[in-house]
């Protein structure tokens, strides 16, 4: 029998799965309100309304969790759901009376309802030790540990504005830009297994991959391999994915760093990248307590001092970096001063100083 040819169908049409009130009022919505944390109410120009109940999930879900969510959707909602970019599940209903029983059921089954408005949203993350080939840490575990700590901030809307967080297990940063990002930061150069390089790695492309031109071809014990100029190396790990014998991950020396002030929205200010504020934090499973302590300190100071609608970056723009470091009690070091290309634009070329 000839092999089956794939049906190259691409991205499926969502209309077939969409809640009928949403499909009916497609492109014709008027306004929305947030009746309580975790619940949105959208009103269409036709007068139709749809209530959305948002709940947190563990993202990496077993069949039983997904089927339980389906059971809840069938019994308490209207059998239509969607997922947000931050792995929350949303249940849509066309009657307000269904909202409370749905919320109660979700909470009783262990799914926190929240993540709307000025709350700490679910942390964007990737695979980590569970499935990635280059991770310096876990992803699901860090997120579970942190969301346990931040649960109250997920189910309430008590922050000045929304807080998006992410975690990443290498410096490729799959988790993405965020108000607070927790990323691996390596502190040693790769350890090279010279016996394997020639057979495993396409050496010219590994040389080309290095952002600081620290890798060059070499002969070790008569075998062709690669060597790293350790005085140039910035420990980024870019060489490791194309060349696994250049091991960058280190149980002791792969640390975590915290970056703040990233923002994808154009609201008020233009989008921003996050900035380094803390590093050298131990990669400490299963609950990464040192990370949680710093994240909570930053969040508490932001919550106490930022004005309504200020994202973390807006708050820091207003109070200035010296006060940020003062309030969060994080050490400011020479490593916070950028020296990569374009770094001069991050220096204070003015007499604007807060006292």
């Amino acid at each position, binding site marked *: 029998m000839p092999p*089956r040819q*794939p049906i*190259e*169908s*691409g*991205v499926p*049409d969502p209309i077939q799965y*969409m809640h009928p009130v949403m*499909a009916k009022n497609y*492109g014709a*919505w008027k*306004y929305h*309100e947030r009746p309580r944390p975790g619940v949105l109410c959208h009103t269409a120009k036709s007068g139709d309304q*749809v209530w959305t109940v948002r709940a*947190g999930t*563990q*993202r*990496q*879900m*077993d*069949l039983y969790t997904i*089927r339980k*969510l*389906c059971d809840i959707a069938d019994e308490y909602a209207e059998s*239509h*759901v969607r*997922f947000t*970019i931050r*792995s929350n*599940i949303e249940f849509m209903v066309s009657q307000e009376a269904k909202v409370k029983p749905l919320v109660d059921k979700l909470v009783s089954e262990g799914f926190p309802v929240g993540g709307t408005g000025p709350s700490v949203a679910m942390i964007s993350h990737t*695979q980590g030790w569970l*499935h990635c*080939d280059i*991770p310096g840490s*876990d992803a699901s*575990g860090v997120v579970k*540990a942190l969301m*346990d700590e931040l*649960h109250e901030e997920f189910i309430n809307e008590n922050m000045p504005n929304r807080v998006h967080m992410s975690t990443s297990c290498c*410096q490729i940063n*799959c*988790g*993405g*830009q965020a108000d607070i990002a927790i990323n691996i930061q390596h502190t040693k150069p790769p350890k090279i297994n010279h016996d394997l390089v020639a057979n495993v790695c396409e050496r010219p492309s590994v040389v*080309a*991959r290095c952002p600081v031109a620290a890798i060059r071809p070499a002969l070790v014990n008569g075998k062709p391999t690669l060597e790293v100029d350790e005085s140039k190396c910035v420990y980024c790990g870019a060489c490791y994915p194309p060349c*696994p014998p250049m091991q960058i*991950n280190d149980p002791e020396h792969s640390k975590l760093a915290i970056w703040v002030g*990233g923002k*994808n*929205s*154009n*609201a*008020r200010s233009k*989008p921003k990248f996050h900035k380094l504020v803390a590093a050298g934090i131990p*990669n400490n499973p*299963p*609950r990464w307590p040192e990370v949680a302590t710093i994240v909570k300190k930053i969040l508490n100071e932001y919550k106490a001092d930022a004005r*309504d*609608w200020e994202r973390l970056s807006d708050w820091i723009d207003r109070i200035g970096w010296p006060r940020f470091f003062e309030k969060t009690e994080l050490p400011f070091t020479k490593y916070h001063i950028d020296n990569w290309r374009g770094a001069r634009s991050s220096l204070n070329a003015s007499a604007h100083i807060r006292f």
Partner: protein
Amino acid sequence: MSKSMHKTPMLDQLESGPWPSFVTGLKRLATDEGKQYQDTMVDLLGQLELSYNTRKGYWKGGTLSVFGYGGGIIPRFSEVADQFPASKEFHTLRIMPPAGMHYNTKILRQLCDIWEKHGSGLIAFHGQSGDIMFQGATSEKVQESFDEINELGFDLGGAGPAVRTGMSCVGAARCEQSCANEQKILRLLVNNFLDDMHRPALPYKFKFKVSGCSNDCMNSIQRSDMSIIGTWRDDMNVDQQEVKAFVGQKGRKYVIDNVITRCPTKALSLNDDDTLAVDNPNCVRCMHCINVMTKALSPGDDKGVTILIGGKRTLKIGDTMGTVVVPFMKLDTEEAYEELKELAETIIDFFADNALEHERTGEMIERIGLANFIKAIGLDVDPNMISNPRESSYLRIDDWDKEAAKWNDRKAA
């Protein structure tokens, strides 16, 4: 009788606490008597516990695909298969979700049933690139799993140097701030490049993301090579009765502090009668005031999209945001959508021909200069493409008069 569970004292600590636990879910699969995935999940938990103890990862990649395609499967082979043989192969199928990630329970249950029969029972909704991640198939089961998922109307997403799975926001399906038909744009673009997705042959990855307004819920400026963002070019809509109601409810100070003074271009003013004055030509469509006063304010009616090119994360040259190449494109006819598709084709062709290996569009543009890129893809330069004109005087202006004439001709046209 199945394998007995490995001791997992580290992972066990992630079962307590209020957030849903992925460990509890993994254990449920590992203790699911008689299921084909049970032993796999027992050993998967064993390997993960080992990682928690040693702080090292134990997966390596490989080469694996389904018949007819070259990408879309993330192969994972265990480096500690001698200790955990049942999970020695644990591959992921990246499957593209419906645009906007809408599902009904029937289709979710059908997907679960396939994965119960052929896979590990573990599914991530969704990966960071926007795929449904069916995590954990053996090499033998990858093809059967794909065939059944494919028959349901779902297709493999991208991996490697290819057009990747895209994302679009909920947009017009539910959001009044939507200025575009996000799901139509996403499907138009991604489904036009399925050959470049399924048979990876580009210099590196290429991502599309579509957001219906500049709140950019899809992070398209930071995370995609081609970012399509809904906007409008007429005046925004103001319901002055609702403005008055909002001021009445929240107070003038709140409105001044949280709406008027937060406008980045000082385009708002509160009138003495508690209505709102808007300097529309100076509004930059940032969305802040509309986010705050959802009933009173909304986007204008002459909608379209802004297109930005070149967003990506760190490697290799440092982060780049997408930058504007088309300030406004009206998408009100099928011909207009066709033009958008042709622009994407031109850009991907140029990228394929000119980027270095493992170079993203943002890096390519950094290397050759935006003006050269704009010229190559057949667009005209526009002051909306910059924050400010050049500051460096190291410049040759050989064709200045000719270039100035082009601008004057365009203005006169």
